[in-house]
C-alpha cells in the first residue's frame, strides 16, 4: 500500500491538475476564437522564455539527483543538489518576472484584451505554484541544514518532489499551448 | 439491457420532437428580432422596419422565426402557450420558432434571472389574423400626429426638456434615445412597464412620477416631476397611437 503522504500529495495534484487544466482550456478557447495568435507572436519572447523554461525543467533533474544522493546516503551532496534546484526555480521566476515587466511596459495588461486576461491568469497561477514549491523546497533545505534531528523524512522529501515535478510538467504543457501554439 | 433500450426509444422521440418544435433554420432570416434588456423587451421587424417594445404582434397561422438577442445580461424568452423558451445571451444570438395556431393574447415572462426586476419582465404576444397584423404594422410605421390640446403640447414640451428624450425614441420628434423602450406608439399598448401595470392614464401618470414605486430598481429614475407635469406628459404619450 502506498505511503499515506505520497498518496495524499498525488490526490492533491490531481485536483490541482483539474484546476490548471481549466485555465489552460480557457486560454485555448479564446485563442481559437479570436486573434490571439498574432498577439502572442507580437508580445511574447519565445526564445527568452525557452531559456527560462530550460532552467525550470533542469531543476526537476537536479531534484531527482538530490533524491538519488539521499537514497545512497550522500546527505551533503543531496543538500547541494537541493540548493541548485531552488536556484534554478528562482531563475525561472525571475525570468517570468522580466517577461511580465516587458509586457506591462508594452501596455499588455490583464485588462487590455483576451490575450492579457488569459495569459496572466494562467501563467500567474502557475507562477504562484512555483513560488509555493520554492517555499517548500527552502523549508526542506533549511530542515536538512539544521542537522540530523530536524532531517526531513523520506515521505516528506518524496511528497514535495512529486509536487515540484508536477509543477514542471504543467509548465511543459503551458509553454506548448501559450508560446509554441502561437506560431502554428 | 431493457433500460438501455428504453433510453434509445426516448432519445429517438426526443430528437423527433426537437425537430418538430425547433427545426433547423437554413437560410431563413428572422421575422422579428427580440432584444432583451434589463427589464424590458425591444422588438424590431427587419422586413417592414417596425420598431416597438414590450408588446409583440404576430400573424396567426404562420411559422415565425424569432431572433433572440440581449443588450446586457442573459435573459430568456418564454411564452409557455406558444412554444419553447430560448436564452437571450449577449454576444451569442439565438433563434426560436413560434407557430401560433390561434389568435389571442399570450402572456410570457423572462425565464433567466437577470437582476432586480426579473420578476416583472413580462412578455405580451398579440396573435392576430394576417390582415389585422398588416394593418397594425402599417399603423406602427406612421409617424404620430403632432400633439393637439394644451395639456398634450405641454407634455411634449416637458418630454423634451426633462431628459426623457435621452433614453426614449419617438419617431418624428427630437427624441432618439435607445436606452429605454421606443415610445412612438405607446398609446396603443395594453400594458406598461413590460406588463407591470395596465396602460391607463392614471397608471401612466403614477409611473412617470415615480417608476421606482412600481418597479423598484428599474433603470428609469424618479424624475422629480409634479403630479400635474406627469399628468401632462401622460396625456401626450397616450395620444401617441
Amino acid at each position, binding site marked *: 500500500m502506498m505511503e499515506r503522504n505520497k498518496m495524499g500529495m498525488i490526490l492533491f495534484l490531481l*485536483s490541482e491538475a483539474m484546476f490548471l487544466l481549466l485555465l489552460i482550456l480557457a486560454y485555448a478557447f479564446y485563442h481559437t476564437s479570436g486573434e490571439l495568435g498574432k498577439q502572442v507572436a507580437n508580445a511574447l519572447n519565445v526564445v527568452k522564455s525557452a531559456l527560462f523554461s530550460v532552467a525550470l525543467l533542469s531543476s526537476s533533474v537536479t531534484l531527482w539527483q538530490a533524491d538519488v544522493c539521499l537514497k545512497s546516503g550522500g546527505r551533503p551532496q543531496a543538500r547541494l543538489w537541493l540548493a541548485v534546484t531552488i536556484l534554478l526555480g528562482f531563475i525561472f521566476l525571475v525570468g517570468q518576472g522580466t517577461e511580465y515587466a516587458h509586457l506591462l511596459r508594452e501596455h499588455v495588461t490583464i485588462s487590455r484584451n483576451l490575450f492579457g486576461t488569459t495569459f496572466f491568469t494562467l501563467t500567474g497561477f502557475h507562477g504562484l505554484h512555483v513560488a509555493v514549491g520554492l517555499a517548500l523546497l527552502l523549508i526542506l533545505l533549511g530542515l536538512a541544514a539544521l542537522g540530523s534531528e530536524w532531517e526531513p523524512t523520506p515521505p516528506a522529501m518524496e511528497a514535495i518532489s512529486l509536487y515540484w515535478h508536477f509543477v514542471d510538467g504543467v509548465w511543459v504543457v503551458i509553454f506548448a499551448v501559450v508560446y509554441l501554439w502561437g506560431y502554428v | 439491457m431493457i433500460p438501455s433500450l428504453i433510453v434509445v426509444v426516448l432519445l429517438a422521440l426526443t430528437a423527433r420532437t426537437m425537430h418538430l418544435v425547433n427545426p433547423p433554420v437554413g437560410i431563413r432570416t428572422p421575422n422579428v428580432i427580440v432584444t432583451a434588456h434589463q427589464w424590458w423587451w425591444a422588438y424590431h421587424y427587419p422586413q417592414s422596419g417596425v420598431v416597438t417594445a414590450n408588446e409583440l404582434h404576430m400573424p396567426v397561422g404562420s411559422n415565425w422565426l424569432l431572433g433572440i438577442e440581449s443588450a446586457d445580461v442573459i435573459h430568456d424568452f418564454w411564452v409557455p402557450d406558444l412554444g419553447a423558451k430560448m436564452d437571450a445571451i449577449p454576444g451569442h444570438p439565438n433563434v426560436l420558432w413560434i407557430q401560433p395556431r390561434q389568435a389571442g393574447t399570450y402572456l*410570457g415572462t423572462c425565464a433567466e434571472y437577470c437582476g432586480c426586476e426579473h420578476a416583472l419582465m413580462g412578455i405580451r404576444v398579440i396573435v392576430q389574423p394576417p390582415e389585422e397584423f398588416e394593418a397594425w404594422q402599417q399603423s406602427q410605421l406612421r409617424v404620430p400626429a403632432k400633439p393637439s390640446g394644451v395639456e398634450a403640447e405641454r407634455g411634449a414640451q416637458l418630454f423634451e426638456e426633462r431628459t426623457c428624450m435621452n433614453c426614449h425614441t419617438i419617431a418624428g420628434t427630437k427624441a432618439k434615445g435607445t436606452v429605454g423602450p421606443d415610445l412612438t406608439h405607446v398609446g396603443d399598448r395594453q400594458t406598461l412597464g413590460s406588463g407591470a401595470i395596465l396602460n391607463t392614464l392614471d397608471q401612466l401618470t403614477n409611473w412617470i412620477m415615480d417608476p421606482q414605486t412600481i418597479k423598484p430598481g428599474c433603470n428609469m429614475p424618479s424624475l422629480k416631476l409634479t403630479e400635474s407635469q406627469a399628468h401632462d406628459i401622460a396625456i401626450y404619450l397616450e395620444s401617441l397611437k
Partner: protein
Amino acid sequence: MSEESPANQAINSLADIKEYRGMLSWITSVDHKQIGIMYIVSSFIFFLVGLGLALAMRIQLMVPVSHFMSPGTYNQIFTMHGTTMVFLMAMPLLFGFSVYFVPLMIGARDMAFPRLNALGYWLYLFGALMMYFSFVAGGAPDAGWFSYAPLTERGYSSSLGIDYWALSLLVMGAGSVATGINLIVTVLTLRTPGMTLTRTPLFVWMIFFNAFLVILALPALNAALVMILADRQLNAHFFSPAHGGSALLWQNYFWLFGHPEVYILVLPAFGVISEVIPVFSRKVIYGYGFLAASTVAIAFLSYGVWIHHMFATGMSYVILYVFAGSSMLIAIPTGIKIFNWIATMWGGSIRFTTAMLFATAFLIQFTVGGLSGVAFAAIPIDWQLTDSYFVVAHIHYVLLGGTLFAMFAGIYYWFPKVTGRMLSEKIGKLHFWLMVLGFNGTFFGMHLLGVAGMPRRAYTYLDRPPLGTLHLISSLFAFVLALAIFVFLWNVVRSLRKGEVAGDNPWGGWTLEWATTSPPPMENFAQVPPVHGRRPLWDLAHKKEGGQP
C-alpha cells in the same frame, strides 16, 4: 453484541468523555469525532438560517404583487438561501457524518491526516462566516447560487456581494478538497486487517467515491471563481461579451462543477440508506456488488451530463443529443440502487423506527425527484420547464425529500452512538409525519406552478390563476415544515438531557461502529473485532452458535 469492555463501562454519555469538556478542547481538537460533531452542529445552525430565509421568501410569495419586501432584498435572500443550503448546510453535514463514521466503520483510530481534518472544518466555518459578513459589508450576493455571468460582472453587480460569494466559496472549497483527500487516503490505508475493499460497508464505499467527485469537481468551481474575481477586481474579460469574452464559458465551468456537486450531495445519503435499511429489515443488503458498481458508474457519468443545465442556450443539436442521452443513462444506475433497497426490505422483518420511516420516505420522494429530473433529459420538456418552478420542485424533492430525509434517517440511527442517548421515538414520529406533510405540501404544488408558467427567482408574480392559490398553499405548508424542524430540535435537547441510555448497540447493527461504547472513547476501540465478512458483528454473534465465519 453489547459486551462492554471493563475499561469503558463508565462511558454512556458525552459528559463521560473528559476530552469533550471545555471549549478549548473542541477548538484545538484534531479528533475525527469532535470534528464530525462540530461539522454537524454548525451545519444545523446554518440550516436554521437557511430555513429562515426560505420562510421569508414564502411569506413574500404568499400573495401576488406583494410588497412585503423589496426585490433587492428578495434577490439577496434567495441567493443566500441556495448558497447556504448547498455549501453551508448540506456539504458540511455530509462531511461531518463522513469524518465521524468512516474511521469507526473501518476499525481505525482516526483519519489519515487528523490535522488536515481540523483544517477542513475551520476553513468551512470561516468561509461561511465571511459569506454572511457580506450582509454588513454592502450587501449579500444577489445573483443566485450559480451566479451567471455577465450579471455578476462589476457593471451589473456593483456591491461587493459577488466578491464575498466567490472568496468564501474558494475558502470553503479548499476545505472540501482537503477533506476529500483525507477520506480517500483514510479508506485506502487505514482499514483494519481483514477488511478488504469488498467487505467495506456501503456507507464507506459511497463516501470513498464521493471524495473523488469532491477533489475533481471543486477545482472546476475554483477556476470559475478565480476568473470572475479577475474580471471584477482586475478588469479582466473572461466573461464580458463586450470585450470578446463568453457568457457561456461561466455556465460551462460552473456546471462542470455543479453537476458532480449534486451527486456529491446525494451519494452520502445513498450510503446512509444502505446502512439503515438492512438493519431495520434484519436482512443483508440486496446486491452489494450492484450498489457499489452503480456508484462508480454514477461517479463517471456525472462528469458527462453538465450540458443538461444549458439546453435552452442555443447549442448545436449534436451536443444536445449526446447530453440528452447521457442524462437519460445516468438514471439507470440510480434506479438500480432503488431496486436494491426495495429488494432488501422485501421479505425482511421490518421495524418502522423513525430512522426506517425516514429511509422509506426517502425511497419514495427521491424517486419522485429523480423522475422529474430525468423528464428534463427529454429536451423539448426542458425547453418548456427549465428555469421554472418545476425545477424548484425537482431540486427540493431530491435534496430535501431525498438527501435531508436520508440524513435524518442517519441522525436517528447514529445519534445513540454519538451521544450515548436514544432520541425519543414518539417525538421522532411526530417530527417525521410533520415533515412529510410540510415538505410535500410545500413542494408538490411547485410542479404545477412550473407548468403554469411561474419562472424561478421571481420576487413576485401577477395575479393570474392558479398562481396565487398554489403559492398560498405552498407558503402555508412551509410553516408546517418549519414546525417539524423545531419538533426535531426539541427531541434533540430533551434526549440529550434525559434520553434513554443507548448502550453499545441499541439497534442490533452489524458494522464496526456498534462494537464500541456509545459514545466511543477517544481511541475508538479498546479492541477491533476480527473482520471476516461484510457484517463483522453478525459473524461474531453467529460464530458463537457455530455459524460460518
